[in-house]
């Protein structure tokens, strides 16, 4: 029920409204509202109950295990939130002069430095507002680089078939054609196909490593050489950075540019539709093209003086991506999270995220589930395929996913990557205890038993949620997303 539908004409909640109405004279008459705004007419208690009940329907990392593959749903430390919410940060106006923003600028500058070191790159801009914008910025820089060199024939971006859907979308948004290349049965890119695909038309390649198959791309150095020899650049999609944090650096693998999702790898809230933060990091070649503004240091001797570097300092920049400079709250949380962890802590993130994934993969395999890449070691996530269950029992990956909700677990990612049929992509993250991992495996084992003895029970799930099984087909065919009063 929408809050508008709870209203009764004339009802209101004014207990918290100011007693004295402010006199507003500065708004021109033609901009003044003629009719009353259509607001929900509800009492204060109705508002409180409405939103409290809505929030109780949330399935979140704060309430349940959330092994959504490729999303890194890790715990968000309350301490990082607390520090980022200090009044000095909260009350700073984004247009405040640099002299009044030295604290915030210091955090931004130091986070840039930390991310440079973690990724092995030469420069970082924190301004992209989310992963998709970071990808766009990254490929726009590749284009700016080729354009600056007068290399206008490069019109193609190569994308392995296991890529995130955003990769080809980004390439097209930047004006490129997409060239898909296959992935071998062991999850690695088909290097022979890559060698045939590259040429003077190649602007670059977009890759995720570890890939969406949940395995590390073992040929990455060969791939980097093939693409560089052809004159192209390498783009690293940071979606799976959690698996290698502090251990392996994209810069050392040969990548020229990457984006990171601070709102996943660096433990800031994710999954609620934002806000996000998708910084880009670049090697030497792409430094001039970084999006602005970037935090810099003014060389005045003595105490460092932090400043914003804009278009004047970086005349070849691809420009601004937002009104201000990224999402300040997410940037601060990421900075504090990085400081909490320190160098050793970052190592532990990747060690435990991969340990947890491999532990679960082994246990699920022992429980009778098929691993999609059973001869490979998993990274921070892994794929099981339900082809056998779909064929023999008529119970699909989606049915398992829906039934998991009844057991109190968020479903893993379903039907992605597309090249593995009937798959679940499972990412436990480093922040879960062994009890939680065991509990999930136990639930999956129970559901498998149910599927064998009473398939309809599984196919009708969920039963315990605010909404029952949704009609995906009807929803897609008769799309209706607008509220009509």
């Amino acid at each position, binding site marked *: 029920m929408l809050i508008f539908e709870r209203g009764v004409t004339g009802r209101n909640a004014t207990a918290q409204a100011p007693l004295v109405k402010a006199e507003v004279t500065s708004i021109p008459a033609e901009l003044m509202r003629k009719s009353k705004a259509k607001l929900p007419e509800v009492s204060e208690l109705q508002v409180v109950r409405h939103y409290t009940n809505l929030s109780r329907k949330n399935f979140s990392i704060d309430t349940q295990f959330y092994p959504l593959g490729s999303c890194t749903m890790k715990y968000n430390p309350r301490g990082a939130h607390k520090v980022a919410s200090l009044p000095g940060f909260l009350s700073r106006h984004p247009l405040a002069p640099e002299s009044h923003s030295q604290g915030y600028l210091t955090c931004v500058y130091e986070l840039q430095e930390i991310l440079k070191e973690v990724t092995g790159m030469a420069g970082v801009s924190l301004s992209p507002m989310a992963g998709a914008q970071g990808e766009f910025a990254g490929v726009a820089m590749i284009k700016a680089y080729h354009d600056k060199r007068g290399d206008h024939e490069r019109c193609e971006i190569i994308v392995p078939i296991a890529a995130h859907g955003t990769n080809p979308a980004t390439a097209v948004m930047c004006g490129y054609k997409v060239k898909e290349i296959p992935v071998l049965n062991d999850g690695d890119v088909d290097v022979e196909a890559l060698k045939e695909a590259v040429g003077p038309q190649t602007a670059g390649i977009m890759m995720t490593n570890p890939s969406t198959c949940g395995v590390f791309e073992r040929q990455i150095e060969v791939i980097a050489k093939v693409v560089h020899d052809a004159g192209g650049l390498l783009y690293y999609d940071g979606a799976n950075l959690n698996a290698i944090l502090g251990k392996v650096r994209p810069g050392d693998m040969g990548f020229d540019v990457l984006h990171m999702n601070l709102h996943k790898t660096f433990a800031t809230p994710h999954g609620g539709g934002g806000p996000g933060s998708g910084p880009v990091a670049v090697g030497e070649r792409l430094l001039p093209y970084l999006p602005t503004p970037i935090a810099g240091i003014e060389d005045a001797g003595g105490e460092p003086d932090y400043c914003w570097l804009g278009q004047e300092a970086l005349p070849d920049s691809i420009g601004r991506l937002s009104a201000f400079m990224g999402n300040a709250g997410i940037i601060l949380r990421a900075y504090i999270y990085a400081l909490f962890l320190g160098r050793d802590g970052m190592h532990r993130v990747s060690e435990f995220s991969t340990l947890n994934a491999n532990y679960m993969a082994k246990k699920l395999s022992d429980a009778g589930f098929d691993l999609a890449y059973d001869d490979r070691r998993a990274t921070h996530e892994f794929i099981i395929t339900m082809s056998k269950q779909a064929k023999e029992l008529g119970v699909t990956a989606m049915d398992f996913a829906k039934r998991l909700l009844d057991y109190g677990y968020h479903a893993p990612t379903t*039907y992605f990557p*597309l090249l593995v*049929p009937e798959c679940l992509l499972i990412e436990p993250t480093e922040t879960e205890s062994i009890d939680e991992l065991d509990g999930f495996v136990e639930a999956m084992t129970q559901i498998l038993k149910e599927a064998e003895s009473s398939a309809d029970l599984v196919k009708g799930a969920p039963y315990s949620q605010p909404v029952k099984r949704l009609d*995906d*087909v009807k929803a*897609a*065919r008769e799309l209706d997303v607008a509220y009509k009063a």
Partner: protein
Amino acid sequence: MSNIPAELKYLSSHEWVRVEHDGTATVGITYNAQDLLGDVVFVELPEVGSELNAGEEAGVVESVKAASDIFSPVSGEVLEINENLEESPDFVNSDPYNEGWFYKVKLADESDLDDLLDAEAYAAACEAEDH
């Protein structure tokens, strides 16, 4: 794998083509393709009058699970598209070889057909993909 008409030609990427009596060719996706995709919710078709080359992308088919490119099995000018699919994309699921057809082309080169799979070879390709 139960439904692979013998009179059609196929691509291993699951498109079928039927040569009609007037020399035009009709294109769609196979029973196996719609089965893999699940319920189809949207089909993007080429423009009437556009020229397609064999092997080139001709459109997109979207299901609740995935979006897949459609590749043209033959070269030629698009004469007609199945406008019913806009309202009823479910025809692709219920009747992939008849009501669920995608588009018709004027065959530019009949020898394109020689490069395609017959029913037996397509069945073998599906079998191989399954394992």
